[in-house]
Every structure is written in C-alpha cells, then in structure tokens.
C-alpha cells in the first residue's frame, strides 16, 4: 500500500503532441496535476483544451502515430506508468484505472448483452469462476440500479441514462482505485443527469475509488468534486479546492469562464461578460502565457514568459503573474 502522502495519481510536466498535416498540434503543454486517494477532482476546460487527451495519456491510450508523449511523467500508485511493459499496462487499464465515456450510445458493444460486457471486464482481470463472475456482474447491475432481469438485454434496448449506468457498472466492476469519467452526463437530459451524478457520488463512497471528472460544466463539478483544475490550451491555469476556487477565481480565464455562464438566479437583462477572441491555434501557440492575447490584464511580461503555477493562497495555485484579488462575485 502506498503511504497516504503519495498522491494516487501524479502527473508531472506532461507534454503531448500530435503530428498532423497542418503542423504539430501541441495538445498538452507541461501539465502538472495530482489526485489524492479517495478524492474527486474536476478537470474543467473548453473544447480543445486537452482534457480528454490528458485522460487518455493516463491510460496510455494515446494513439501513436500521430500522437506522442514528448515529455513528463505519470505516476500511478507511486509507479511510473510510462515505464511499464505493455502487459503491466493492460493489468492497470480497466482494473486499477477505469474510464466512463461521454457517449453511452457508442461506447458499449451493440452485439453483446450488458451482462456479458460486465463479465468480460471481470474475467479479464480476475481468475474467478464463471458462475462467480456472473454473480459479480449481477451485483454490479444492482448497484447501478438496473433490475437483474434486464441483464440479458442489449444496449439498444436501454435508454441513454440506463446505458450510462451500464458503462458505470463495467467501469467499477473491478473496483478500480481511480475512475476517470469523461463528460459522463453531457449527452444526457438534465433530470437523467441528476440521477447519474447522484449515482456516481454514492458509488464513489461505496467502492472507495478516486474520481477524475472531466467536464466543461462548472455546475456539475460543484455538485460532485472536492478539488478542481481549470485547463486552458493544454495546461492547468488554476487549481484549488472547490470552495476556494468558486469563491475566488483568481486566474483571468477562470473568472471569464464563470462570468460567461448564464445562471438560474442571475439578474434579468444583464449582458453576459464575454472573453474576447478564441482559443489559440494549438499548432501555433502564442509566446509567453497562452491566455495573454485574450487577457484584459495582460502586461509585457505575460507575452514574454509564462508565469508557471504559484501558490498564491494556501492550496490555491494560479498560473498568472497578476492573479485577481477581489472575489469573483459581488457579495
């Protein structure tokens, strides 16, 4: 057992590139991130920020070519994942680290019953007898709220929310110590999303797994996570426990993100604050801080050299020379 001070997952200086016809895409640029055992971390960013690429790197599933991890280290339970042999990696994938995907329609096998799909995962990673594997699969279905009489049905017979439950059952079947959920509720309706988030929250406690939740929705993170990391153009720009970050977003990008979200309780008739411009082209990242071309507070130094993560307040890290000091909201 690793001691409690070693993070469960520790990503250091991760760099990922993709060679494409239009140039080298710098998808992840010097990303540092760690996740403690039993905690849940929200990884938030817009399309193209590199969230999913980071998750795939943790599972060592970056397709190469065109992708390539060009730098950094990923430690899982204290071991360097990138240094593992292929068979060691296979023992980690699905067993110790499991993943739930965004689209429950396409991530399940359409010609296998849901029971078989759960059993497949269990028998791959254990030497239990067939009967025991089946029992375990039925237990998993019960755990995610699917009646056992539906075990022999196929994915197309389930609704979107139920399919995502199946995905969760498969992911948790081997009791992984890390669950990566990549936009698990984005394809679902809001009432179904509430059901699935509720389920994930409860199961995280029961199965005692850590959670890396990838999403673009700050509301979903607020419901589920302990800590949150904001990602922009392939790196983390702000990291803190959730309360501190939501009370006081310090990076100008984080602040802009919060201001751009319409809220149920906001005043009527007030215009949304908009971050000017677009995400930088990942084949041609700006020099210095990658947010500087859009940042209303950028000064000369920002265009020259990125600041790097600094602990501005205890446990609250911001990658900015001039973090915003007054709170994100008018109290």
């Amino acid at each position, binding site marked *: 057992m690793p001691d409690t001070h070693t993070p469960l997952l520790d990503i250091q200086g991760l760099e990922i590139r993709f060679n494409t016809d239009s140039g080298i895409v710098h998808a992840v640029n010097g990303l540092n991130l760690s996740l403690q055992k039993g905690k849940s971390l929200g990884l938030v960013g817009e399309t193209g920020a590199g969230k999913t690429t980071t998750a795939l790197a943790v599972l060592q599933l970056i397709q190469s070519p065109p992708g390539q991890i060009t730098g950094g280290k990923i430690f899982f339970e204290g071991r360097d994942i990138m240094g593992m042999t292929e068979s060691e990696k296979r023992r980690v994938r699905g067993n110790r680290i499991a993943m739930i995907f965004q689209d429950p329609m396409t991530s399940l096998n359409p010609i296998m019953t849901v029971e078989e799909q759960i059993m497949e995962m269990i028998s791959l990673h254990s030497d239990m007898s067939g009967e025991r594997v089946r029992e375990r699969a039925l237990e998993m279905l019960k755990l995610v709220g699917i009646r056992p009489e539906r075990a022999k049905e196929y994915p197309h017979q389930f609704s979107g929310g139920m399919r995502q439950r199946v995905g969760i059952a498969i992911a948790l079947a081997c009791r992984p110590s890390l669950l990566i959920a990549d936009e698990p509720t984005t394809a679902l309706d809001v*009432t179904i999303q*509430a*059901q699935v988030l509720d389920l994930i929250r409860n199961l995280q406690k029961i199965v005692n797994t850590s959670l890396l939740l990838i999403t*673009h929705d700050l*509301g979903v993170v607020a419901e589920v996570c302990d800590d949150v990391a904001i990602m922009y153009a392939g790196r983390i720009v702000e990291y803190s426990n959730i309360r501190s970050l939501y009370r006081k977003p310090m990076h100008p990008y984080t602040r802009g993100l919060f201001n751009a*979200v319409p809220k*149920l309780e*906001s005043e009527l008739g007030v215009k949304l604050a908009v971050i000017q411009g677009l995400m930088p082209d990942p084949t041609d990242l700006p020099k210095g801080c990658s947010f500087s071309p859009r940042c209303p507070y950028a000064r000369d130094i920002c265009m020259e050299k990125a600041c790097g993560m600094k602990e501005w307040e205890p446990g609250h890290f911001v990658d900015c020379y001039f973090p915003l000091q007054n709170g994100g909201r008018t109290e």
Partner: protein
Amino acid sequence: MNGIAPGAEMLLDIRGLKKYFNVPKGVLHAVDDVSLTIPKGKTLGLVGESGCGKSTLGRVVIGLIEATAGEVFFKGEDMLKFNDTQRSHFRTRAQIVFQDPFSSLNPRMSVHQLIAEPLLINSVCSSRKEVDGKVKELMETVGLAERLITSFPHELDGGRRQRIGVARALALDPEFIVLDEPVSALDVCIQAQILNLLGDLRKERGYTYLFISHNLSVVRYVSDEVAVMYLGQVVEKTANTTLFRKPLHPYTQALLSAVPVVDPDAKKERIILEGDVPSPIAPPPGCRFAPRCIYRQERCSAENPVLSEIEPGHFVSCHFAGSLQGGK
C-alpha cells in the same frame, strides 16, 4: 421583462396544435394539443427534455413540416391554411436558426454564397453589387469579419458558423425567428457571445423569438415568458421570473432542482425523478407525467389535467397545482 401584458398584440397564436407521426410501432404523439401565444417583440422560451416535442413544434410553426390538426395564427392569419403565394411570403417573414452549425450549412458553399442564398432565392436585390453590399452588411451585423467572406464552413469554428446561421436568418429582415437550441453545440464562452448577439438584435430590431432549449439557465437568460413541455404537451407557462421563482408543476419543480448550480455551498432540495420519459407512442392515459410524479394520486392516471390559469398569467396543467407550492 416581467412577462407579457394582457391584450398585447400577438404575433403568433398557436391553438390546439397537434403533430402526429406514423411510425412502425404506432402513432407518435410529438405535439399533442398545444396552445401558446407570443406577442410581438417578445421571446417565448420553450424548455423540455429530448423527445418532448419542442423542436417539432418549432418546425411546424415555421412551416417546415405540416401539422396534423390545429391552427397557427401569424399576425391574425392561419398560416397552416396559406396557399403557395402566401406561404412563400410567410417564409420571408419567419425564419429558423438550427442547433448544429456543423450540419446545417452546406459545406460546399462559401460564407458569401451561404448568406446571399436567401437574398437570391427571393430576388430582393436588383444587382450583384447590391447583394454583395447586403452580405457585407449582414456579416457586420452578426460580427463576422469581412475577410472571412470567401471562407468555407469547415474553416470556421462553431461560434462563427452559428453566426452565419444567424446572418442567413436575418437576411430577409424577418419578424419572427425560431431559435432551435442555437447555443447547445457551443462552448460557454462562445455561447455567451451568441446569446449577447441575439439579445442585441432583438433590442435593435424588435424581433420576436421562439427560443427552444433544454438548458434552463439559457432560457432563463433570454426569455420573457417560458413554457415547459413534457411528452408533447405544455405543462406550465408563465412569466420568466415567476416560473423560476415559483414553479407550480411537479415536473417543472423537478427540472429546476436537477440543474447543477455553480456554487459548491448551494444546499438545495433535490427532487430526483425516477425512471425515464415514457414513449410518446401511446402515451400513458391521464396526466402524462403521473408515472414519474412524486405526488401522484389515483385521479392523475385517470384524468388528464388541462392547462388552467392558477394565478393571473400562470398556467399549469396539474390537478393539484395550487397545493404543491414551493416544491413541497
């Protein structure tokens, strides 16, 4: 922005609208007896989950698909009964912006061609030069840089593509625009830009919008009035502020409570609905929400409630609407 004054001029008046589809398994009740009105210059937000019939409703009122029954009065005339001439005129007055700016634009047409298309079809310009001028004017209105005029959709990001969609809808200076999930495919920063654009346009030109969305926060942001749909029917309709402050239908209450709040300390009563939306093919008898409703009584599965005015301007379709206030 406090709802709609009684007696205001109705630009659109939908009465008892039905749209059924014949599908292999039976008859799909996509829109089932919906009545709604939108006064000139106002925005009606239409919310509901996938499959509730909100997009079908939007398409029927714009004349893209035919209704099964009912009436849709546009400026006092029933557009469902229009002859061809009247219909082609109506189509210059009413426009639609679609959800997906990736599939709703012809990939082989340039920005110029895309925006000029409605102008050319309706021959509103007398010369090539006038078309060019109008295209540039429209691009400026929606915030597209002129240098993009020769670009193709695949070269542009989602926000810019959606701006082309808006420019196409505005080309004939319509009075009424159906916005069918116009920001659902966009990231929050781009979403904010498009929402601001739509708001500005409405303010400047007095457009009337039917804003269809599954996102309650977005609807709350843009609407004067909000109608909530469930399985082809409107279950609640009232002024924006009233709906969000005091939802009376149990479905609306559950829907609102399910929205994740961007505040880790927000402690709110969450109503988690059981199960999924039933099939719109042979919907359950009685109240369609009854099978999932936490307050259901015997009467609910026997008798379909009608949309009735519980308070001035607040319409709810529930037998017990008055007694379920505040989510309890």
